[in-house]
C-alpha cells in the first residue's frame, strides 16, 4: 500500500516540465510517426553514451512512439467498434478476447494524452473506464490523474507499462478471429496498437474460460509468457552435512553436546540424507559458494535435531497452539518483526527508526565485555562463551539506534550473531547481537528498502525496495553481488528458497518472480494476484511457494512446473504474513483483518493435475475448496498479525501491535 500511495502523491503533485523538445511535431492523420524520432535527441545530461540516471533521451524516445497515428476524434469509435465485435462473438472466444480491453484502453488513452488532445482523452476515459475489470480500478484511478503530457514523463510506472509489452494468452482460434476482423476493417489503428504494444502468446487448444483467465490476470504487465516459466529450477533441498551425534538411549539432554563419538557407532544425521543418491531436483552442493559449518553451527544442528524429535505432528485433527506476542504502546509504529529460528529472540523494527531486540526466554540479553576485560578471562575454560558476556549489561530489551527512517524489514542470521534491518533511509544495517552495536551500513538502494532476509545458511542476504530491484549481498562485500531487475513496481517482499539458490520477490506490480542466485536470471514469473504482494513463504520441502497480497487471497504455486495450484480465500484484508509448519503440513496466514487462519497444506497440494497440456499451456483448473482447507480462524483483539513463526516443536508464535480503533 505504501508503494501505491507514493505513486499517487507523485502523480498528483508533480508538475513535470516539458523535456527536451521532440524533433517531430505531432502530425494529424499521419501514420508514419514512429519511435525513431527521439533517438538522436540528447537530453540535458549530455551525450547519448552517458549513463545518467535521468535518461531523458530514452524517455522521449519511448514516449514519442505514441506519436499521432490516427484521428483523435475517431478513437472512441474504434474502441466501440471493437467492443461491439467482441460482445457479438461466440461465448467461448469472448472471455479471451475481453482481455484486450484493458491494455487497449490504456494505450489509446495514453496516446491521446501524449498528443495533447486533452478533451478527447477525458471523454474517452469517461466513456469506457467503467467497462474495465474491477481489479484494474486502482490503476485506472492513477491513470485518470494523468491528463497532460508533462504528467507522463515523471510517472515511472506508466513508462514501464509502455516499454514492457502487455502479455496476453489467447488460443489460436480466438486470435485468428480477432486478426481477421481487425484487418478487414479499413482503419488499422487498433491493429497497429496490438502489434506494437501487446504481446500475444498464442497456444493451441481450447479457449480458456472466464474463471481460468480471472485467476491468472491482474498484474501490471498482463500474464507471463510461457517461456518465462520453462527453465529448470532446482527446487530440491541441499543435503544436510553429516554430523555425528552421540547415541543416547534415554533421551538425556545436555550431556554430550560436542558430539564426541562414543564407543558405539554414532547415529548419523538422518535429516535429508535418507538416500545416498543425489536428488535430481536438488542443486549441486557447490552450485553457489556457501559458508562452511563452524563448530557452533554443528552444535546448533544437534540441538535442532533433538528438538525435532519432540516436534508435534500437526494435521487437521491436531492443530497447533498459537502464542501471540502483542506489542503494546507501539502507536501504529511497529513496521517489522522477526524471530530467530530457535525462537529465543524477537526483534521489532519501528517507525521511529529504532530496532528493539527482546529475549523471549528467561535468559537475558548480554553484551560482550570490553576488550580490556576480555584479555583477563581464561580462554580455555569450557564455559568461555558465558564468560565473555558482561553481566552488568544484562537486560531483557536492547534498543539499537542508527537508522534515520522507519525500519521496514528485520532478519536474524541463522547463527544468531547478527541482525539485519532495512529502512526507509535506503540502507540495510548489520547489527552484532554480541555487542549490540551497528557493524555495517550497506548502501545501494537510494530509496526505501521494504524488506530484507538472511539466507538460510547465513552470509548472503537479499533486500528489495522502492527502486524496483532486489539486491543480493554478502556480509563481507560492501556492494551487492547480484541485482535482480525486472519488476515494474516496488519490490515489497524478498525471500530465500530453503536451498539458498533462488530468491523469490513479490512486488507492487502484482507479480511474484523467482530469481536464480547464480546468474541473476528470472526463472519464474507468477501472475494472478490482484493487488501488491506483501508476504511470501516457501514450503519446507522447497517445492511450493505461498504468496499473500492486499486482495486477501493466498495463492499457492508449484515452482517446478511454474503453475498456480491453489487459491485460499477467506481473509478480508491484506495477508501480511505467511508461514508453513516445520514439516509442511499446515500453512498459517496472518492478516490485517486481525485474524490468523490455518490451512491444510497437505490436502492443498495433493492430486495436482500436471498433465502435459497443463504444463504446456500453463492453464489450471482450480478447485473451489478454500472452505475445506480452512482448519481454523483465530481472532485477535484489533491487532493485525504482522509476523508468524513456527517453533521447532511446531508451536505457532504470532506477533503484532495492538492498534485500537
Amino acid at each position: 500500500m505504501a508503494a501505491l500511495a507514493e505513486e499517487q502523491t507523485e502523480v498528483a503533485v508533480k508538475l513535470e516540465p516539458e523535456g527536451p523538445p521532440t524533433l517531430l511535431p505531432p502530425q494529424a492523420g499521419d501514420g508514419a510517426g514512429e519511435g525513431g524520432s527521439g533517438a538522436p535527441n540528447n537530453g540535458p545530461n549530455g551525450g547519448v553514451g552517458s549513463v545518467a540516471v535521468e535518461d531523458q533521451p530514452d524517455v522521449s524516445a519511448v514516449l514519442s512512439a505514441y506519436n499521432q497515428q490516427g484521428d483523435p476524434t475517431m478513437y472512441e469509435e474504434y474502441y466501440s467498434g471493437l467492443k461491439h465485435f467482441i460482445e457479438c462473438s461466440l461465448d467461448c472466444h469472448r472471455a479471451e478476447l475481453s482481455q484486450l480491453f484493458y491494455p487497449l484502453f490504456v494505450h489509446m488513452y495514453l496516446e491521446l494524452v501524449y498528443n495533447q488532445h486533452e478533451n478527447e482523452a477525458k471523454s474517452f476515459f469517461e466513456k469506457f473506464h467503467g467497462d474495465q475489470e474491477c481489479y484494474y480500478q486502482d490503476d485506472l484511478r492513477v491513470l485518470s490523474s494523468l491528463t497532460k503530457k508533462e504528467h507522463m514523463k515523471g510517472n515511472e510506472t506508466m513508462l514501464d507499462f509502455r516499454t514492457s509489452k502487455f502479455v496476453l494468452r489467447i488460443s489460436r482460434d480466438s486470435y485468428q478471429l480477432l486478426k481477421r476482423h481487425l484487418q478487414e476493417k479499413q482503419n488499422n489503428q487498433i491493429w497497429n496498437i496490438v502489434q506494437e504494444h501487446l504481446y500475444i502468446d498464442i497456444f493451441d487448444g481450447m479457449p480458456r474460460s472466464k474463471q481460468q483467465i480471472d485467476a491468472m490476470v491482474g498484474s501490471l504487465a498482463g500474464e507471463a509468457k510461457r517461456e518465462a516459466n520453462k527453465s529448470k529450477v532446482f527446487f530440491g533441498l541441499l543435503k544436510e552435512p553429516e554430523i555425528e551425534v552421540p547415541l543416547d538411549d534415554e533421551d538425556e539432554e545436555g550431556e554430550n553436546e560436542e558430539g564426541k563419538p562414543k564407543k558405539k557407532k554414532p547415529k548419523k544425521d538422518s535429516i535429508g540424507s535418507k538416500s545416498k543418491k543425489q536428488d535430481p531436483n536438488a542443486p549441486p552442493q557447490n552450485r553457489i559458494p556457501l559458508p562452511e559449518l563452524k563448530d557452533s553451527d554443528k552444535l546448533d544442528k544437534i540441538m535442532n535435531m533433538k528438538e525435532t524429535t519432540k516436534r508435534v505432528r500437526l494435521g487437521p485433527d491436531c492443530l497447533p497452539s498459537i502464542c501471540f506476542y502483542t506489542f503494546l504502546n507501539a502507536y501504529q509504529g511497529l513496521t517489522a518483526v522477526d524471530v530467530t529460528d530457535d525462537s529465543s529472540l524477537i526483534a521489532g523494527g519501528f517507525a521511529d527508526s529504532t530496532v528493539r531486540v527482546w529475549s523471549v526466554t528467561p535468559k537475558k540479553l548480554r553484551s560482550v565485555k570490553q576488550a580490556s576485560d576480555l584479555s583477563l578471562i581464561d580462554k580455555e575454560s569450557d564455559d568461555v562463551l558465558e564468560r565473555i558476556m558482561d553481566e552488568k549489561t544484562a537486560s531483557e530489551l536492547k534498543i539499537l539506534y542508527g537508522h534515520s527512517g522507519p525500519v521496514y524489514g528485520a532478519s536474524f542470521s541463522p547463527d544468531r550473531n547478527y541482525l539485519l534491518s532495512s529502512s526507509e533511509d535506503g540502507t540495510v544495517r548489520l547489527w552484532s547481537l554480541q555487542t549490540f552495536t551497528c557493524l555495517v551500513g550497506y548502501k545501494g538502494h537510494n530509496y526505501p528498502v521494504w524488506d530484507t532476509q538472511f539466507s538460510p545458511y547465513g552470509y548472503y542476504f537479499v533486500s528489495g525496495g522502492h527502486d524496483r530491484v532486489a539486491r543480493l549481498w554478502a556480509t563481507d562485500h560492501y556492494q551487492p553481488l547480484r541485482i535482480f531487475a525486472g519488476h515494474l513496481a516496488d519490490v515489497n517482499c524478498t525471500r530465500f528458497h530453503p536451498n539458498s539458490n533462488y530468491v523469490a520477490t513479490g512486488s507492487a506490480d502484482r507479480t511474484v518472480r523467482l530469481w536464480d542466485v547464480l546468474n541473476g536470471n528470472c526463472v519464474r514469473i507468477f501472475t494472478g494476484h490482484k493487488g501488491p504482494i506483501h508476504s511470501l513463504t516457501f514450503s519446507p520441502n522447497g517445492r511450493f511457494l505461498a504468496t499473500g497480497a492486499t486482495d486477501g487471497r493466498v495463492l499457492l504455486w508449484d515452482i517446478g512446473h511454474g503453475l498456480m495450484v491453489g487459491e485460499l480465500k477467506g481473509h478480508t484484508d491484506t495477508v501480511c504474513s505467511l508461514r508453513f509448519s516445520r514439516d509442511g503440513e499446515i500453512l498459517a496466514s496472518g492478516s490485517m483483518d486481525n485474524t490468523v487462519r490455518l490451512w491444510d497444506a497437505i490436502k492443498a497440494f495433493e492430486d495436482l493435475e500436471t498433465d502435459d497440456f497443463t504444463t504446456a499451456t500453463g492453464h489450471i483448473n482450480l478447485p473451489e475448496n478454500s472452505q475445506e482447507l480452512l482448519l481454523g480462524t483465530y481472532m485477535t483483539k484489533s491487532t493485525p498479525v504482522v509476523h508468524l513463526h513456527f517453533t521447532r516443536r511446531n508451536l505457532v508464535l504470532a506477533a503484532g501491535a495492538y492498534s485500537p480503533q
Partner: protein
Amino acid sequence: MESGKMASPKSMPKDAQMMAQILKDMGITEYEPRVINQMLEFAFRYVTTILDDAKIYSSHAKKATVDADDVRLAIQCRADQSFTSPPPRDFLLDIARQRNQTPLPLIKPYSGPRLPPDRYCLTAPNYRLKSLQKKASTPAGRITVPRLSVGSVSSRPSTPTLGTPTPQTMSVSTKVGTPMSLTGQRFTVQMPASQSPAVKASIPATSAVQNVLINPSLIGSKNILITTNMVSQNTTNESSNVLKRKRDDDDDDDDDDDDYDNL
C-alpha cells in the same frame, strides 16, 4: 482514524475542502484529519518555492513580469532536486546485466566475522583522544578532553562556574578576580558525555569535573576566552573518564585558535 472525526465539510475553509476532494478522487478514504493540513502546507510551500524561483529567473532575464516560461523553468529545476524517482527500467536492466556477469566470489574459510574492509564498516572509533602530556603514556581508553580557556574578566566570570575544583585549585581560583592572574591560567575540565554545551551555570557538582590544573604560563597578559568543546557523543565512553592533566608547554600553539564560543 475515520474521516468522521474531521470538521464538517461546510465549516472547513475552501482549500481544505478542495484537498479533501482530491484525496477522495485518488481513492483515499481513511486518513487522519491532520493529513489535510499537512497536504495543504506542502502545497503552499511547493507553490511559493516555485513562484519565488520563477521571480528570480524572470528578473534575471530582465523581464517585467513573471510568465509561464519562468514558471516552467522553475518547476524543472526544482523537480530535478527534490522529486527524484528511481532509475528507469532499461538502465536498471543494464546495470543488472553487468553486475550479474561476475561469478559469485568464493568464501574464505576460517575468517572470523565476515565483514567488509574496515573503511566500509562502522566499527572504527569516531572519536580521538587528545594526548595531554608527554610523560604519562596515553591510556588505551580514549576520550576527548574538552578544554576551557579562561576569558577576560570583563567577558565572563569564570572560575565559580567550573564546578567543584579540587583543593589544589581552590587556592588558585580565588585569585581569579584580577586580570593579571587570569591570563596565566589555563585549565581543562572534563565534561561528561551527556551534558549539553551550556556550561556556564549548569555544571552539576557530581559531574566528572575532577581536576583543574592551573598553569602559570608564559603567555603573559593575553586574554583568553573561556570556551568549551563539545564532548563527542560516543556512548561507549561511559567508562574510564579520567581527566588528564595538561601542561601548557604541551599545548599546541594553536590552542588559542580554537576559540569556539560555545557557551
